[in-house]
């Protein structure tokens, strides 16, 4: 009995001390994180710097465009690398054009058109080693005045971003205890997809882009899609582009691909076909709806190939290739769906269909029978993004660099060269 009461007294004392000493203990919790800080310059300063600057390392490759022996490779949000590709086995990175906010481009003749945040800049590339700015056309892309979840200083231009790391005190949780752990990253609500990684392609008599393109040129007009509009810019006088029209075509627009007098526009909800018989006033002639996802598209006379992929900004969970009959443009009909891993850009060269299947590499299909595509070759070990294919030569943008392949014999695809990305 005595023991029982002394134990009880000790227990009560201990519980009391448990609370008395509580002020002596601390929880220390920190969060170490990375963020990008914008570097502002005046618009005049930035414009003056749009010229041939020394070559820079490739860090975040975006859209590609080829013209003659030169490759123009977008460095996302920063500018364009000029690569001398005279020798495909040994391409040379010769210069860099600083164009802050740049994500897309197209070339006609000797003029390269590129977006510079809200503006369009026309650059004479007659001598790629000595480019000359010809004109700035303002407010062609008004939606670029803001970023996703970020409102920049409107009086200045973001010329660069600097990576920073910081450690701060953080809440320790509080939803734990007997009910388990917590979900700590409230900050994630601010971090998500953007249109920043969507790319550019297009075909013109003078240059060629990839299927992820948001710029394309048909005859005397540059067509550029924003997230919700199709912008038409007259380039009849190449060095003097004139904004002509803006057609609202719905949200989630991602890519544009020209074929004859049609534009195939990929959105995250479907593929739209626009007739450009009247070039300044594109008219929608047909559409094909699909599950929500990102969807670059290419087409020929009777067939469109659309890759649907999941992931950030794509708002979906579908990873597949849709083959669509477009012989009647007003009513595209799905022919067949092929499952993929995470398909991005694609290209077709004769009966060879080449698909960038993300982390699954580069896939070569025999597409002579679109109802029965057969995989002929798969190149693995690279995370592919976009491809241009011409007569047995493929230029591939991947996460870790710019690759060139010779696929004149599809069963024996050989690597010609690689320009590596520097992290």
């Amino acid at each position, binding site marked *: 009995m005595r023991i029982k009461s002394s134990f009880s007294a000790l227990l009560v004392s201990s519980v009391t001390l448990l609370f008395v000493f509580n002020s002596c*203990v601390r929880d220390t919790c920190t969060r170490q994180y990375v963020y990008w800080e914008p570097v502002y310059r005046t618009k005049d300063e930035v414009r003056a710097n749009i010229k041939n600057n020394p070559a820079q390392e490739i860090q975040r490759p975006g859209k590609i465009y080829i013209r003659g022996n030169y490759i123009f490779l977008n460095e996302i949000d920063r500018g364009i690398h000029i690569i001398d590709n005279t020798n495909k086995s040994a391409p040379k990175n010769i210069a860099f054009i600083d164009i802050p906010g740049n994500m897309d481009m197209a070339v006609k003749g000797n003029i390269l058109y590129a977006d510079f945040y809200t503006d369009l800049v026309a650059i004479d590339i007659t001598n790629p080693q000595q480019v000359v700015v010809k004109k700035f056309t303002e407010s062609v892309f008004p939606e670029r005045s803001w970023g996703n979840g970020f409102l920049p200083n409107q009086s200045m231009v973001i010329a660069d971003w600097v990576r920073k790391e910081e450690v701060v005190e953080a809440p320790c949780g509080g939803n734990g205890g007997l009910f388990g752990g917590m979900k700590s*990253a409230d900050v994630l609500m601010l971090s998500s997809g953007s249109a920043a990684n969507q790319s550019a392609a297009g075909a013109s008599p003078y240059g060629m882009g990839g299927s992820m393109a948001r710029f394309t040129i048909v005859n005397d007009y540059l067509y550029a899609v924003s997230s919700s509009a199709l912008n038409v810019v007259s380039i009849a006088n190449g060095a003097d582009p004139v904004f002509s029209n803006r057609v609202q075509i719905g949200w989630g627009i991602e890519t544009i691909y020209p074929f004859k007098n049609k534009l195939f526009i990929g959105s995250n909800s479907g593929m739209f076909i626009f007739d450009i018989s009247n070039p300044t006033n594109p008219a929608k002639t047909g559409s094909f709806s699909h599950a929500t996802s990102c969807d670059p598209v290419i087409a020929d006379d009777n067939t469109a190939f659309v890759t649907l992929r999941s992931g950030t900004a794509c708002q979906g969970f579908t990873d597949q290739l849709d083959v669509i009959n477009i012989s009647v443009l007003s009513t595209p009909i799905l022919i067949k769906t092929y499952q993929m891993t995470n398909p991005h850009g694609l290209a077709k060269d004769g009966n060879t269909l080449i698909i960038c299947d993300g982390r699954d590499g580069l896939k070569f299909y025999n597409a002579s029978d679109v109802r029965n595509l057969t995989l002929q070759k798969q190149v693995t070990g690279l995370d592919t993004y976009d491809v241009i294919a011409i007569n047995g030569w493929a230029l591939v943008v991947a996460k870790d660099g710019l690759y060139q392949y010779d696929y004149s014999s599809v069963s024996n695809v050989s690597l010609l060269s690689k320009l590596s990305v520097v992290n």
Partner: protein
Amino acid sequence: MKPKYFLLLVLILNGSMITSGQKKENVCKFHSINSVLLLNGEEEISAGLQSVNGFQKGNWFAGIGLGLDYYIHRSVPLFADIRHEFGKGKNKFFAYAEGGINLEWAEEFNEPIFFPWESVSNSEFHNGVYTDFGVGYRVGMKRPGGLVLSLGHSYKTLKEIVTYQDWRTQEWLSDVYRYKLGRISLKVGWQF
């Protein structure tokens, strides 16, 4: 990975019962101390369980312990325990020190975030350290049992890495959260 902690706990408890029946006098004696914990820290009051199994020789005890610790982020401490008893007789004061690894068993997440655009993010916890030191009192009951009460300072750490995709660069970024959690621990247990 998680169920094996339970399995380990059960094995230790079972092992202690089997072995305790084989002990002899005047040699190293096997003991198992099984306690419930009340953990009072800056953030919250929480609870835990603990089983320490080891050998006693004279006034010294050394053993291995495994527990469940629910303070803020659930974890499984695996530690060495050493304690010294003072005095003679059935009822004794003692001091103890515990140190080891704090195995993560927190609730991780991997889920899409739908606003403003979808982004898959996930968290991954990593093991930390665990310490506890304090004083207590053992009340001897019918041999070989005893009621054990102790009060001490307990400390555990964990690291959480949250990965997500940057909205602008599409780069996968990692936020590293380091949790250093101090508590006052009250343990009430039974010693076999």
